[in-house]
């Protein structure tokens, strides 16, 4: 049999070599290419000796055609219908010989019934993106698309998978040791002040690793990095007339492909390598990588949306459909991925395994994860097979799995998400409790106590590793805005300020927006520090929003998903301008890392303790006498662990009252003395100290806590550095 000579796509190397495998000889000629029946597994496009193996499945298609392009050319080079003998069940597989993976792009045409009422929307006139595409061409440059008339704008490509990881592997840090830093890959370095060589890219994030190390975080959570369409937003900013984007990217087109426009090397087809290098370097710096993944919907929208991939391949399988074939919309975006359908479950699992094995990802945060517990008819499952599979999968065994345990249709599962002893949750109730206390609400003390101590009311079974604590996240105000605005200001989003949450539990400290009044500014600085200190002294996994450590603002916009500009980009001049806040955040993180008692609530309460003090105790203005009254605005918590001569003791007092108070301090055993770590009422830089170098308190019996302030003390032998 003669190899087909198709110059445009032929692989010069392989065409000349004699195949070394006996299945590397073609059996058929289709569309001018030498082919043979392919391997049904693995799905997707896989280089094999002499060619490329293509495998795609659809349980409802009646015929499938492989469409081959030369990279960047509008018209296909060839169309290769799969002969019936190349089909196994619903899987179509074909090995095409002599193809060059680097210059080839491919898609599929799927034929089958077009009966929307029954859920089927096959249209062989459309060229479809492979759901397993590992690299997607057509959107290599942010905000720029190839011709609008292109019949196949998002094209599957075939990346190399031979990245040299050396001995890298996921870091597997204990969950409670993590300090998560949530960032947007583009926004983190896109600002001209970032000083990196390729702003807004994976490579640029790699360049910023020294900053992350200095800050002390040990885990980054990347907002969506699966390929998405940032231009998928019909609105514009009414005042400025600028176009708006889908900047955040909760809108996946391809679940296996890293977003090409985040790669400095995308035009060379190297986005996969660049991403892997970023993970490898972060790991070398001791920083884990979590991905924010969106498995609740796709970019195809409802019946008015585009046909990109899933809808054309097997609509009735991939989407939750009501009677009459209408799309359920639990995600608020038009469609809902049918994630507990057995086929889709397999797809999700394949995808996560791919990211763990190929990209060494340390864990995942699942957007609107409550949807992952819904049945194909939308009902809420007690024992959702998808979540159970992910919890017990051997490849994912050591991964962090974090749920955003609610959805856009009112299902709120914080504390009740089916976690199989394995899943953690974004603790929305932690956020709300800290915010209520911070703004000085009455009745906030008792819940604050529960939240600082690991939210045992929600997570008694799973322990503090189940609660991801946060005060701010991408969705909502930044920390600076939380203390500068009473209300959201989303006019620039083009929806008349109707979008975004109205319940922000924020307080502007006396003036809405930027203020010159030094008292207001000082109060805001203090409130931001209060929030950071409470967050980083709470049991559970703390998560910071990137930029909060430097006072980043979005001018009161609490739903900035659509802005690609200075509002959402990290202005690196803030690092200099707000150096004292950054220092505060750095030291608060370092203090947490120095004090196991803040991280490991549960073990500290187990046996072999010297019991000199309780593991956790509550105090008020009087030691041992917390004030749980509704009008109370002051709370102190002391944590202690002592065994084998190692003693770790931290006292935190939080006062949301507008007056100062004198605190009676708990007496310490065995010559231990109170040392002052942080007092947010003090003027920077005296408001915080280097861990291990805290000055002793002159008066060991009482301390003053200022108005709306947080005070943190640690106990150790006088004159000694902290025991570690």
């Amino acid at each position, binding site marked *: 049999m003669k190899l087909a000579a198709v110059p445009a796509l032929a*692989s*010069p*190397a392989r065409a000349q070599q004699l195949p070394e495998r006996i299945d590397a000889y073609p059996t058929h000629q289709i569309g001018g290419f030498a082919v043979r029946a392919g391997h049904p597994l693995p799905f997707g496009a896989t280089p094999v000796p002499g060619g490329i193996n293509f495998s795609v499945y659809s349980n409802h298609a009646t015929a499938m055609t492989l469409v081959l392009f030369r990279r960047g050319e509008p018209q296909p080079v060839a169309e290769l219908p799969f002969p019936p003998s190349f089909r196994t069940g619903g899987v179509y597989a074909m090995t095409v010989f002599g193809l*060059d*993976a*680097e*210059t080839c792009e491919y898609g599929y045409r799927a034929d089958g019934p077009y009966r929307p009422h029954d859920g089927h929307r096959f249209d062989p006139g459309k060229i479809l993106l492979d759901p397993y595409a590992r690299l997607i061409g057509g959107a290599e440059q942010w905000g720029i698309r190839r011709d609008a008339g292109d019949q196949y704008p998002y094209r599957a490509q075939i*990346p*190399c998978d*031979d990245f*040299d990881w050396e001995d890298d592997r996921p870091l597997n840090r204990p969950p409670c040791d993590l300090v998560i830093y949530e960032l947007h890959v583009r926004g983190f370095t896109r600002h001209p002040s970032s000083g990196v*060589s*390729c702003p807004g*890219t*994976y*490579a640029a994030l*790699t360049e910023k690793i020294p900053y992350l190390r200095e800050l002390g975080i040990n885990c980054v959570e990347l907002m969506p990095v699966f390929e998405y369409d940032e231009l998928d937003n019909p609105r514009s900013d009414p005042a400025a007339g600028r176009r708006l984007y889908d900047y955040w990217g909760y809108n996946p087109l391809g679940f296996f492909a890293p977003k090409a426009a985040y*790669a*400095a*090397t995308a035009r*060379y*087809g*190297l986005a996969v*390598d*660049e991403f*892997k*290098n970023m993970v*490898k*370097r972060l790991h070398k710096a001791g920083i884990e990588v979590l991905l924010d993944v969106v498995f609740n919907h796709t970019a195809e929208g409802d019946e008015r949306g585009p046909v990109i991939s899933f809808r054309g391949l097997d609509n009735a399988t991939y989407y939750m459909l009501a009677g009459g074939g209408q799309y359920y919309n639990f995600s608020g975006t038009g469609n809902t991925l049918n994630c507990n359908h057995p086929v889709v479950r397999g797809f999700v699992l394949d995808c996560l395994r791919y990211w763990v094995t190929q990209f060494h990802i340390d864990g995942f945060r699942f957007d609107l994860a409550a949807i992952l517990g819904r049945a194909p008819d939308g009902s809420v499952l007690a024992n959702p097979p998808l979540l159970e599979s992910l919890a017990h999968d051997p490849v994912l065994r050591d991964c962090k799995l974090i749920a955003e345990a609610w959805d856009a249709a009112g299902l709120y599962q914080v504390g009740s998400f089916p976690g199989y002893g394995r899943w953690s949750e974004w603790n929305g109730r932690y956020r709300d409790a800290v915010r209520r206390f911070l703004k000085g609400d009455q009745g906030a003390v008792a819940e604050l106590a529960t939240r600082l101590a690991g939210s045992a009311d929600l997570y008694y079974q799973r322990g503090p590793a189940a609660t991801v604590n946060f005060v701010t996240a991408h969705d909502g105000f930044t920390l600076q805005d939380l203390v500068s605005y009473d209300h959201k200001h989303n006019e620039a989003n083009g929806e008349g300020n109707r979008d975004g949450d109205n319940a922000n539990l924020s307080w502007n400290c006396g003036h809405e927006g930027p203020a010159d009044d030094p008292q207001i500014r000082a109060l805001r600085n203090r409130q931001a520090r209060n929030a950071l200190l409470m967050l980083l002294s709470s049991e559970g996994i703390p998560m910071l929003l990137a930029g909060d450590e430097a006072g980043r603002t979005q001018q009161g916009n609490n739903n900035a998903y659509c802005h690609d500009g200075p509002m959402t980009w990290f202005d690196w001049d803030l690092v200099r301008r707000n150096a004292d806040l950054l220092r505060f955040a750095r030291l608060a993180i370092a203090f947490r890392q120095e004090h196991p008692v803040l991280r490991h609530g549960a073990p500290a309460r187990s046996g072999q303790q010297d019991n000199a003090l309780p593991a956790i105790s509550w105090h008020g203005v009087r030691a041992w006498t917390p004030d749980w009254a509704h009008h109370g605005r002051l709370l102190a918590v002391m944590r202690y662990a002592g065994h084998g001569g190692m003693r770790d003791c931290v006292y935190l007092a939080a006062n949301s009252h507008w007056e100062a108070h004198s605190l009676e301090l708990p007496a310490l055993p065995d010559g231990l003395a109170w040392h002052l770590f942080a007092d947010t009422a003090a003027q920077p830089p005296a408001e915080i100290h280097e861990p291990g170098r805290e000055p002793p308190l002159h008066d060991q019996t009482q301390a003053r806590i200022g108005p709306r302030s947080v005070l943190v003390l640690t106990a150790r032998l006088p004159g000694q550095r902290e025991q570690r």
Partner: protein
Amino acid sequence: MQLEMHMDGDVTIIAVAGSLDSATAPGLRQYLEEMVSGRGPVLLDLSRMSCLSSAGLRVLLVMCRQAERNAARLTLANVPADARQVMAATGFLEFFTVADTVAAGVQELAA
């Protein structure tokens, strides 16, 4: 892609001109396989390389690995700025020995 070879002392200098991509990489590979298998140190002068693709980058790295295995030495010189940036962004750069000029590379290899 065109290849030109000359010697500077023990050092074999190969100048690569044109695009190094999946179409041309196998040619370079075949050419280099002989060079890095026991004929002394090799320097690749990339000053006239117009484009470096994923496959091209890989051939360079495979040759580098091959050289290490044979205890031979391979240096890249005059790496164009954008190619260097691609190598840096993908982490390949740290695997290569890179010299700013041919002369500097030869000096290093001859040492």
